[in-house]
């Protein structure tokens, strides 16, 4: 059974239909990269998977559970499905440790020492254990994004969503974030990424999904998709990002 099952999902903002019947399966351990032009509905689809947006039609299930913005166990669900944003969204008034341990301390009632150990553990995974006492403003963009990933990992999610996580970074900082994501992929984390990093999509993804005009236009393994795009839309997209 697929970890995420998206069936015929539609979504509009006012009179603009952003998703026009999207269907997609994501299996456990898969790295799915969603590519496409701006406005193709990539980020909206990602936000719908995490119940940040209400869908108008169709159905999304994660681990067999139907995702709805008014689902009764939404908070538990959100802890199982982590999302990392383009703008990091770290809490500026909290140290790195507090950013990471806020939710576990409040919701899982873990002790302070246990929280610090948890923060150190996830920070080591993103190579930032020495920044545990720093504030976000004292970190570079790349470091902030790695802390945001660590904050998500501390929730022990079953699925992680990445919404253009390298788009706000200076080019020289992109590599460090991608490396962390590659490590996570190797460790078997199920990941769905919206990205413009074609190199990452080509090398790390198990499946590429090309979205166009609110639909899944083409999908398949990266080698196939990049070598033999079937539609002129994907051909022109690949040409434009080369």
């Amino acid at each position, binding site marked *: 059974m697929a970890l995420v099952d998206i069936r015929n999902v539609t979504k509009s903002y006012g009179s603009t239909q952003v998703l026009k019947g999207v269907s997609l399966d994501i299996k456990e351990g898969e790295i799915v990269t969603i590519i496409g032009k701006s406005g193709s509905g990539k980020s909206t689809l990602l936000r719908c998977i995490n119940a940040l947006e209400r869908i108008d039609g169709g159905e999304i299930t994660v681990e067999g559970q139907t995702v709805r913005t008014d689902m009764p166990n939404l*908070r538990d669900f*959100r802890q199982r499905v982590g999302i990392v944003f383009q703008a990091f969204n770290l*809490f*500026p*008034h909290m140290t790195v440790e507090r950013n990471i341990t806020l*939710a576990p301390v409040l919701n899982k009632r873990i002790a302070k020492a246990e929280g610090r150990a948890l923060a150190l553990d996830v920070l080591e995974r993103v190579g930032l254990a020495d920044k545990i006492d720093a504030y976000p*403003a004292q970190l570079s963009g790349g470091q902030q994004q790695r802390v945001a990933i660590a904050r998500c990992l501390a929730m022990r999610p079953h699925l992680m969503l990445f919404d253009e996580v390298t788009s706000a970074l200076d080019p020289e900082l992109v590599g460090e974030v991608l490396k962390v994501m590659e490590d996570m992929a190797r460790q078997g984390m199920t990941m769905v990424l919206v990205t413009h990093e074609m190199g990452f999509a080509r090398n790390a993804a198990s499946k590429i999904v090309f979205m166009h005009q609110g639909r899944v236009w083409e999908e398949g393994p990266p080698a196939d998709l990049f070598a033999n795009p079937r539609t002129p839309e994907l051909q022109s997209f690949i040409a434009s990002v080369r």
Partner: protein
Amino acid sequence: MQTLNFQQLWRYQDQLIDGTLHTLLLTLVAAVIGTAIGVAAAAAVRSGPRPVRWAIRGYVELIRNTPSLIQLFVVFFVLPGFGLRMGAFEAAAIALGLYFGAYCTEIVRAGLDAIPGSQVEAGQCLGLTRWQVFRHVVLPPALRSVYPAFTSQFVLLLLGTSLASQISAEELFHTGGFIETRTYRSFEVYAVICGIYFALVMTFKLLFAAVGRLAFRWPVRR
């Protein structure tokens, strides 16, 4: 020309100390009432039901656009007609608390509005409740951004407590009036009273600066 004579005032030092303490107490009680109103009302204006939002808007506009002295008279002279009988000090604390609360609502609301929605979203995505997001994610940076405005309003409140003398509440200005009627030394009395207000305000300003440094330690990227 009449010479200045502060000597006579010396024997009223106990009354002056007492008046100063009452002014301090009145300020602090009104500030606590007003801050509680301000935080709760600002939160409700953002996410409460429509009738509550309208009620809060009405309260803020009414208080900010009418004289504080009349508000004080309403609480002290009109409310007893509805069975709410209270002493002058209590009436002053409530009237000034309501006055401070209206300004605080606008100040805190501005602070909350300055926090990007993406911060709220990040909190929700970590599985936090609405209250946890408000308390831990939104409120601290919001308070930091409005702290200077809040402290200025507090100073205005402290100085505004002198209005309570009009309903004979025991506070510093009322004490000044009392000493004046005994000594006929108007200039000296109000010079001393003025000096005490000035010293209180300067002390609070220093205190607020220290508290601000302690409470809002996180660095901000500019």
